[in-house]
């Protein structure tokens, strides 16, 4: 049928089917700003349009229903001054992170301001109530609306400047536009899904309905015979190789235990077969035509089941070691049926007993420490699986160009993708090119090679372009989740509050495959234990295979779980001692000049060493939080706050807090947190900076910007060093052909490593510029300096970068001026933070509302403060979601019960705490670029323990399992059996 409507002010008519949605038709017509976060469930709002002036989800509107109506998308407004104002305000308020939601956000605000020119915070929340954003934590959207409303009323309005740092520098420490913000805020082509050309084939996977089964037979004849089917792949015709999907430095500390397709399926949603077809509909039809016979096995659905004697064995293949030998007493002989398991080096594993990896170490003598204690507290904490939920699911476009495999990927690790795909496909790395597109959120899930191996292989095999994008359900069940864990913490302390011993016993559930199986749980220890000074400390880590969804990397890695367990246990010890929990932390925490001995046992894959801290800002951050929360006033009974359990109705609450009845009781909690900045001694990053003929710069950075602002950071560093402005620097990044190697975006390494490489490249170019200019000006290099904007000034003369650039491309000139920087270091840079929470807990219903959340954060020099704050807001709100309601649930057959946004809740703007504050309190690092450290990951580490402590303060119950659902709170309070 033909449907005609007004699209962005012009008549438009499209041929469409009865089932076509407005969104499908508009995207077909080239309107790319309509995104897809939920596959038409109607729950994400990223496909929003204005239909006769109302904001609606275009996936829930039949195209036919648009007949005769007025449809407006963001594209229209690129000529609309009001929308330009809103888009500008979104950039100014640093709201554009991955940008996948930004067009929908801009359109929502446009609709809001059209009906309410001076909206209240509640109206802003209502206007954005249907739009999910996983990156920003929403807080800065309120600011963007304020700026836009003020500018629409008065075009001359200047937004107040945020805090600035490093007055000695021009750009570093000051807010500058994010370099990709314009493209993203306009909804222009940027992501993998925007690169599809006619003729692209679609890849779909047949998911396993069973958690644990052998494929007895698989018949693909009917599927293969279907017109439009290009290829069908099963375990019978895929490469016979095992690898790990973990995008980690090679050799990886993860077992090679995954085949492209295996004859054994190990979780519901595991790959059974893959179909490549000319349309997605044909691919779906072909999947339905595949006949599979399974031999269903008993599944392993918990850590307890995995370690039980006689448990079903998830990996029964032969075990071998590239280096080193198997631990004594472990079995290595395969059953002759299952895929082999190859360890690059020993991880103290015993896969035939479902033990993927383990580690034990410590300092001092914990038993002596417990013996010396006046009080010993031992508690077990449980944390369930949570999903990263990037709004753009895993996505890749693979094609053959000039005989090589080219992957346009939504990835955090282009070089690891190249290495792993080359291995999986069986070709050399020079035959593979990976181009990282704009990434619609990664958060760790895209550190794994989840779709690229299959797509790459089928493109290589068929020579056809292949598009493979996970559905939202696949993203839940077959992407990567945060490991479920159980951590037992045993603490010994003297009456005066001095810790005498810490023992952490950690069991992790790595799911069916072993990617990150040791490093994530180890990170739970290595990013929590070093915060406390204790001579006797020990940890025992075990990571088990189960038949639940694969676990992997997720922002914070293991740290949020270790932090939850240890910080909550410390507060429980404080309660037992009758001390204020913050006083107890203060007494035992690391401080400037502390020697952290436990790091001897926590080398990341190599021998560790004790570290003596330089300056540590924890004291200042705690003091700031104490002041803001009026913490002083003495501890109440059992270490609770003096005002603990105060009815919310009687207290002064933050301005926009909801009205709360006498059933709501108030409590507060505070924790200290830490992370690292990349992996010292293990990882490396490189960058190249070219002076162009007009004096501008081209930065070729290996770094993978996931929306975090890394490209902006590298541009600013180059501009700072070369006396230019960020607009003078174009950044090309994450392309394995045209940019130099970088380990990728993980382990909080972006600013420190990729930024460090960019800074060194800029310094190298500066040195070359000065040497060349010195020769031309006839002056000594040491007498020259670079001044803004792009002038090399000597004692007697000066020359512009533009002139030098011009000469560099002339026959009589000095040749191209290129700087190169490599960053690697043995120096460990720790960002620290202190997070403070005030929660209201309904003692009748167990519901928890976060009223105040303050994050005091030391990220060293914040290179772009507003973007850094955005990272903290985003991480903290995610962590609030993890702590209160996010949880993947499974039935007794291992099927995920809530693989969609209607059932798995992530925070919306309505969940933003009424008083949500981030303060950056920098302590400069000696090695990081201009003193910078990492910022984003650390901020997920605080919410869970701080909220648990606040809940206890409010109602006197310790909730030791996250998320703290109302049901668990009531159980902890003894109100449910």
């Amino acid at each position, binding site marked *: 049928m033909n449907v005609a409507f007004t699209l962005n002010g012009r008549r438009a008519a499209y041929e469409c089917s009865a089932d076509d949605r407005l969104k499908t038709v508009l995207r077909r017509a080239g309107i790319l700003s309509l995104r897809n976060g939920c596959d038409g469930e109607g729950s994400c709002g990223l496909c929003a349009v204005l239909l006769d002036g109302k904001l609606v989800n275009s996936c829930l*509107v039949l195209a036919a229903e648009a007949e005769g109506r007025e449809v407006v998308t963001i594209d229209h407004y690129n000529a609309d001054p009001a929308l330009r104002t809103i888009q500008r305000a979104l950039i100014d308020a640093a709201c554009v992170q991955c940008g996948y939601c930004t067009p929908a956000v801009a359109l929502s605000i446009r609709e809001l301001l059209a009906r309410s020119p001076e909206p*209240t915070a509640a109206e802003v929340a209502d206007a954005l*109530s249907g739009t999910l954003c996983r990156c920003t934590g929403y807080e800065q959207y309120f600011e963007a609306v304020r700026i836009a409303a003020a500018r629409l009323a008065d075009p001359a309005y200047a937004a107040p400047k945020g805090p600035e740092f490093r007055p000695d520098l021009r750009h570093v420490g000051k807010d500058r536009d994010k370099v990709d913000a314009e493209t993203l805020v306009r909804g222009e082509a940027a992501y993998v899904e925007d690169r599809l050309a006619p003729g692209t084939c679609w890849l779909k996977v047949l998911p396993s309905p069973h958690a644990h089964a052998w494929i007895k037979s698989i018949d693909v004849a009917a599927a293969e015979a279907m017109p439009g089917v290009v290829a069908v792949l099963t375990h019978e015709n895929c490469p016979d190789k095992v690898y790990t999907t973990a995008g980690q430095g090679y050799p990886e500390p993860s077992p090679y235990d995954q085949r492209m397709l295996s004859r054994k399926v190990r979780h519901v949603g595991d790959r059974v077969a893959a179909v490549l077809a000319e349309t997605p509909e044909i691919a779906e039809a072909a999947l339905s035509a595949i006949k599979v016979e399974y031999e269903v096995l008993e599944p392993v659905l918990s850590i307890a089941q995995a370690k039980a004697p006689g448990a079903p064995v998830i990996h029964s293949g032969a075990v071998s070691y590239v280096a080193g030998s198997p631990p004594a007493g472990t079995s290595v002989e395969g059953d002759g049926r299952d895929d082999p398991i190859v360890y690059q080096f020993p991880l103290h594993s015993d896969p035939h007993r479902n033990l993927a990896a383990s580690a034990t170490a410590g300092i001092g003598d914990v038993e002596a420490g417990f013996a010396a204690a006046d009080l010993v507290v031992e508690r077990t904490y449980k944390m369930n699986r949570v999903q990263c939920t990037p709004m753009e699911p895993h996505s890749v476009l693979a094609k053959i160009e000039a005989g090589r495999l080219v992957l346009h990927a939504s990835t955090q690790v282009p070089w690891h993708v190249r290495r792993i795909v080359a291995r999986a496909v069986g070709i050399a790395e020079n035959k593979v090119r990976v181009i990282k597109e704009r990434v619609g959120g990664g958060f760790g899930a895209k550190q794994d090679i989840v779709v690229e191996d299959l797509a790459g292989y089928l493109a290589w095999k068929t020579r056809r372009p292949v598009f493979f994008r996970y559905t939202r359900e696949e993203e839940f069940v077959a992407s990567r989740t945060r490991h479920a864990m159980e951590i037992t913490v045993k603490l010994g302390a003297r009456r005066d509050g001095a810790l005498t011993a810490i023992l952490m016993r950690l069991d992790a559930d790595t799911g069916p495959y072993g990617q990150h199986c040791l490093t994530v749980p180890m990170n739970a220890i290595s990013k929590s234990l070093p915060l406390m000074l204790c001579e006797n400390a020990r940890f025992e880590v075990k990571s088990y295979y189960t038949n639940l969804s694969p676990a992997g990397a997720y922002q914070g890695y293991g740290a949020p779980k270790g932090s939850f367990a240890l910080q909550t246990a410390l507060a429980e010890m404080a309660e037992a001692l009758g001390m204020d929990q913050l006083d107890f932390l203060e007494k035992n925490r690391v401080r400037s000049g502390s020697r952290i001995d436990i790091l001897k046992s926590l080398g990341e894959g190599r021998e560790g060493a004790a570290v003596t801290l330089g300056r540590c800002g924890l004291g200042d951050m705690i003091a700031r939080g104490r002041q803001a929360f009026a913490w002083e006033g003495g501890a109440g009974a059992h270490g609770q706050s003096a005002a603990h359990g105060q009815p919310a109705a009687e207290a002064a609450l933050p301005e926009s807090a909801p*009205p709360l009845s006498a059933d709501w009781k108030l409590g507060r909690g505070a924790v200290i947190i830490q992370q690292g900045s990349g992996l010292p001694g293990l990882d490396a990053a490189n960058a190249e900076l070219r002076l162009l003929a007009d004096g501008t710069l081209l930065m070729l950075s290996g770094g993978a910007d996931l929306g975090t602002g890394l490209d902006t950071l590298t541009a600013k560093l180059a501009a700072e060093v070369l006396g230019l402005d960020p607009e003078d620097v174009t950044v090309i990044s994450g392309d394995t052909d045209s940019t130099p190697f970088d380990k990728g975006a993980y382990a909080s390494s972006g600013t420190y490593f990729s930024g460090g490489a960019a800074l060194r490249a800029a310094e190298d170019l500066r040195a070359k510029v000065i040497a060349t200019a010195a020769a031309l000006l006839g002056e000594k290099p040491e007498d020259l300096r670079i001044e803004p904007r792009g002038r090399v000034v000597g004692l007697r003369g000066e020359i512009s970068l533009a002139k030098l650039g011009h000469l560099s491309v002339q026959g009589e000139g000095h040749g191209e001026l290129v700087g190169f920087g490599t960053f690697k270091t043995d120096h460990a840079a720790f960002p620290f933070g202190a997070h403070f929470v005030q929660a209201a807990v309904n003692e*009748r219903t167990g519901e928890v509302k976060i009223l105040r959340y303050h994050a005091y954060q030391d990220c060293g020099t914040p290179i772009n403060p507003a973007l850094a704050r955005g990272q903290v807001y985003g991480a903290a709100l995610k962590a609030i979601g993890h702590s209160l309601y996010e949880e993947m649930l499974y039935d007794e057959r291992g099927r995920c019960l809530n693989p969609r946004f209607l059932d798995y*809740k992530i925070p919306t703007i*309505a969940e933003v705490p009424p008083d949500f504050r981030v303060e950056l309190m920098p302590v400069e690092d000696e090695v990081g670029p201009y003193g910078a450290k990492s910022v984003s990951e650390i901020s997920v580490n605080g919410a869970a323990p701080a909220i648990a402590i606040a809940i206890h303060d409010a109602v006197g119950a310790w909730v030791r399992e996250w998320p703290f*659902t109302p049901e668990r709170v009531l159980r902890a309070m003894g109100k449910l059996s």
Partner: protein
Amino acid sequence: MVNAYFRPKSAEEAATLLASEKDAVLLAGGTYLLTSQFAKKPMAAIAISGLLPAAIERHGERVIIGAGATFQALAEAPGMPKALRDAALAMADRNIRNRATVGGNIGADKSCASLVPFFLVAEARYSRVGALALGAAEWQALPAAERGIAAAVEFAAPTARRFAYERYARTSCDVAVLTCAASAEFETAGGGLAARGLRIAMGGLSPHARRFPELERLFEGAALPGKAAIEAAAAPLFSPVSDARGSAEFKRARAAALLADVLAALANPEANETPEARP
């Protein structure tokens, strides 16, 4: 999967198509029917947007809401009982409120349909296209295929009658796990306020929201007891099922607490705490 699309010129023509077309479904806002959960269900969509009344009117005590009215229009309509506005705003997602219709809500009749509990306690009547009006509970009792097209919802809201509405959801923008509406007149009796003509409806405890006469009898004609007493009395009467949103035990306790809150709000509207209230 929409296999065929019809755009009739009148509500009557829509009713004829509904009766004659194979797999016929009425398509209003589409926020239920067009979601991915029905991607595989064959449907012949009969578009009714624009064909049904959409006005929201109050004539003295009588309230008439066109079945074509959207949730957002209902939330913005002046003169409606606050509890009805709360029910409309319980659908917290504005994008959905802009499309979802009143007719679609009673048509879908989901267990946690936001408006249905209110209509049940208002003893609303649904007028239909080319058929006699039905009471809200009668409508629910009919098989969906026999209900026809709801044209408007009508109920009495006399000044003496109070309404209250609340829901429990896991997050602010979640679809409700439990809903509760109550309505009563109050008169002074024995030194307190006694509820007369008490009506209670709850969703989330059965496949469709329903009245709870057993609860109504429990509290009828006397001053409402305190929250703890209401909870203790009501909890044993609920038999929810365990699912991803909570165990049966939790839902039972939570439903009892929700009821207690709604009855407290009914008895004391001044103190009515309405977390749902938004602009």
